[in-house]
């Protein structure tokens, strides 16, 4: 449907955002600043939804700020930074998880999709991410008042196939049709490109909460052509935080003889304090930390920016190697880069900015909020996919695959078939044959990575080509086609050429969910989503009803109420009774209707109160005397200040 809105989503390690760009200039949303791209705020008005998921004691899923509170008090019931676990196996994360408070399921086999304990059961990373996506979807639906089913989701440029597939699965589980996965630095360049229509070479340095990417792009008349990309999917603000926590924990153990690791809650308090200190030191030279430890003692320290910079220097240095490699791969020198764009919260750290500007020898762009620019860019790409608008009609993104694709050949070596930094979609065709008389199937091991030996590369999948007609060894000629689509995801098809038979492919994704598993998760979450949604709508409508009833009770008998006719008073009272009746039921639609009627019926009352309030203010009376406080027309707390 032409009216379906496609949103852009930045599914971040630390925070997630949803944005939208109006299709067509005439339809530009009135709330949209500038070019019509804007972040859709959450219920609390905040543009950022913290990427934290928690389960409360009643088994309800909490996402965002609510979940973050749980993390501080009952950390075993919350999960953060789940993006680091997407598309990964147990052997990848065992070391890393020592620094995080979550617990993996005990029965995981290598190569299996991870499962993490949360509340009373275990969840896979795509299911946790789906909770965040569903929250963003809800925020967008609340904002537009219509269902939102389609999205563009961003991923780190350096994400491999399994990590991309896991992100796409998360979208499906959340009930979103993921039209495109866009690389985060590329999305950022799109957001910047809206304002600056110019040609040249740009470098995007994206240092986020958990991942680091650098991309070199060539801009030519609206075409954004990525020339090279590099990065580290396990390098971000989290690593800085974990380092600071480790330093502090050692300090505490030495000075106060307390092992803070015994208390998960204390570790989370320490983590929050170190994050606050890190953020503060981006704008001040010195900050104090004060953390309550188990047993009531306090850890007090003053940290200077210089101390912080010394501690994190090695981490910042780790981002520069990929930058140099990307420049080499792009065949340009740092001096040939015309513009440098900074993206991601960690680029607020002065040391990071200094190092980047030193490397590229120029001042970096920071005009757009580094937390929001990726989501805005995703919305631009969503707009393009939706048919485009005046601003985007010339824009086209040509991205690359970050890692080489290979197959395991004789002797366990990697034979590369699609090289890194190839523009996607990209394809390769390989021919295989049999080694034994009458052999009817062959196994192919697909890899991703730059290393020479297969064991050092990422295993993507093992394919069995079955149904080969029995022939003498070496005679069958099986053509296998590898295609990396515009999302950076691999597709494989095969055919035996002598018989013309399509070979069957039995896919065993190394770190991915099977289609069937995803389907089950969709069904599973759908059941819950329905009840979740109904419950939430009921709670919301009841809250709203309470607000209006409280306001009415206050107005009752006041000056404005006395000015109403007898008929108007009776009508309001009847409507009030009807609303109270509706609230005893569980039909949120009935409650909403009753609220609307009561609102209609008390409109004159609200006007009279407003008049009295203004008059009262002019005569110097205080608000209480006017009966205006929390009146139906001005429920917002800051409404009061305007009259003072």
């Amino acid at each position: 449907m032409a009216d379906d809105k496609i949103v852009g989503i930045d599914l971040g390690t630390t925070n997630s955002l949803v944005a939208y760009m109006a299709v067509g200039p005439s339809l530009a949303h009135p709330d949209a600043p500038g070019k019509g791209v804007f972040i859709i705020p959450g219920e609390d008005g905040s543009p950022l939804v913290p990427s934290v998921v928690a389960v409360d004691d009643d088994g309800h899923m909490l996402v965002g700020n609510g979940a973050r509170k749980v993390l501080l008090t009952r950390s075993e019931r919350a999960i953060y930074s789940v993006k680091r676990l997407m598309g990964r196996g147990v052997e990848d994360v065992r070391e890393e998880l020592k620094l995080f408070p979550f617990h993996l399921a005990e029965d995981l086999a290598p190569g299996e999709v991870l499962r993490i304990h949360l509340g009373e059961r275990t969840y896979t990373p795509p299911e946790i991410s789906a909770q965040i996506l569903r929250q963003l979807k809800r925020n967008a639906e609340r904002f537009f008042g219509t269902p939102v089913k389609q999205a563009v989701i961003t991923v780190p440029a350096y994400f491999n196939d399994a990590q991309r597939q896991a992100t796409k699965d998360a979208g499906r589980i959340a009930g979103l049709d993921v039209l495109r996965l866009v690389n985060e630095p590329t999305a950022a360049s799109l957001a910047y490109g809206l304002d600056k229509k110019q040609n040249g070479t740009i470098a995007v340095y994206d240092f986020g909460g958990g991942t680091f990417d650098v991309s070199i792009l060539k801009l030519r008349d609206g075409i954004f052509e990525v020339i090279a990309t590099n990065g580290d999917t396990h390098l971000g603000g989290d690593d800085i935080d974990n380092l600071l926590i480790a330093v502090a924990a050692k300090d505490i153990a030495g000075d106060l003889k307390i092992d803070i690791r015994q208390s998960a809650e204390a570790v989370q308090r320490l983590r929050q304090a170190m994050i606050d200190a890190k953020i503060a030191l981006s704008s001040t030279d010195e900050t104090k930390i004060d953390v309550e430890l188990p047993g009531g003692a306090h850890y007090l320290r003053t940290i200077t920016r210089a101390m912080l910079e010394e501690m994190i220097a090695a981490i910042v240095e780790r981002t520069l190697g990929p930058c140099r490699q990307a420049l080499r791969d792009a065949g340009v020198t740092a001096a040939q880069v015309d513009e440098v764009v900074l993206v991601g919260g960690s680029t607020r750290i002065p040391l990071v900015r200094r190092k980047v500007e030193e490397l590229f020898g120029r001042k970096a762009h920071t005009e757009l909020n580094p937390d929001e620019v990726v989501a805005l860019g995703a919305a631009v790409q969503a707009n393009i996919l939706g048919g485009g608008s005046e601003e985007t009609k010339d824009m086209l993104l040509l991205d690359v695959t970050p890692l080489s694709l290979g197959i395991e050949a004789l002797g366990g070596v990697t034979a590369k078939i699609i090289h890194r930094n190839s523009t996607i979609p990209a394809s390769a065709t390989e021919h295989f044959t049999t080694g034994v008389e009458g052999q009817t199937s062959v196994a192919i091991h697909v890899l991703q990575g730059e290393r020479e030996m297969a064991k050092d590369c990422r295993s993507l999948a093992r394919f069995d080509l079955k149904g080969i007609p029995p022939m003498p060894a070496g005679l069958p000629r099986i053509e296998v086609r590898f295609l990396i689509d515009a999302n950076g995801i691999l597709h494989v098809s095969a055919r035996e050429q002598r018989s013309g038979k399509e070979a069957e492919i039995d896919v065993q994704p190394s770190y991915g969910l099977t289609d069937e598993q995803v389907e089950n998760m969709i069904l599973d979450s759908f059941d819950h989503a329905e009840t979740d949604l109904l419950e939430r709508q009921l709670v919301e409508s009841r809250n709203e009803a309470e607000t209006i009833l409280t306001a009415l009770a206050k107005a009752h008998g006041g000056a404005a109420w006395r000015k109403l006719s007898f008929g108007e008073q009776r009508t309001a009272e009847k409507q009030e009774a009807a609303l109270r009746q509706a609230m005893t039921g569980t039909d949120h639609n009935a409650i909403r209707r009753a609220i609307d009627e009561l609102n209609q019926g008390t409109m004159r009352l609200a006007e009279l109160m407003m008049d009295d309030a203004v008059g009262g203010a002019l005569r110097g009376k205080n608000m209480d005397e006017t009966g205006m406080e929390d009146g139906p027309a001005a429920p917002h707390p800051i409404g009061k200040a305007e009259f003072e």
Partner: protein
Amino acid sequence: MMSEAIKQEPKIAGGPQLNVLQAPPVQHRCWSCGDMRAEHFCGECGHVQPALPTDFFSFFGLPRLLELDEERLEGEFYKLSRKLHPDVYSRASEREQQWSLEKTSQLNDAYRTLKDPISRTEYLLMLQGIQLEEQSKIATEQARAFGVEKKQTVPAELLEEAFELNMLLEEAKQGGVDDDVRGQLISTRDALNARMEAMQQELEAAWRRWDEGDASATDVMVDVLNRRSYLRNLLRDIHEVLG
């Protein structure tokens, strides 16, 4: 029964095998409006057409020549990208989306192969049925599988330099890279880079001869590419030591 796959040679990266002779232009009717189609889209209604086997030069409508106008190639690449890219077809039928995906991957493969002078030359030689020994992946794989260095004939002009460089690299591996070794490695690197430049000139001269119909230029190109490949390996070894 199950066994590891064995890769078959020969093969041509990214594209189907064609004879040296240009295939006659194939005329098809547009699946959508029935009009005679152009190469990639219907000339009448503009709909994308299914991908057909084609060689990379024909894909761009370019003559099969090695001296290629790179700016024109880039211009064509951008122009076709704007029309073929999956972004443009995200709301089209599933069939058109699939064709757009296949066409675009063909476009990208073709552009990548032709824009680089070396891969362009290799591709043209492959179209002529010439396999470069040094480029043959299977030779590399087999050498690795049996744990031996791939046999490479040292070009005569490089014999002395290669010998000295190997001594130097051996020294660096044993005793580390001191300032003296580093200096020698850097000057060798610069000398080899200068040779690379010279080979490029040689290659371009051969292109001109080939484009003018001189078939003997093929042997020159094969020779240059083989020497170049050897040189590149030496440079890679130096970069590894220098870091």
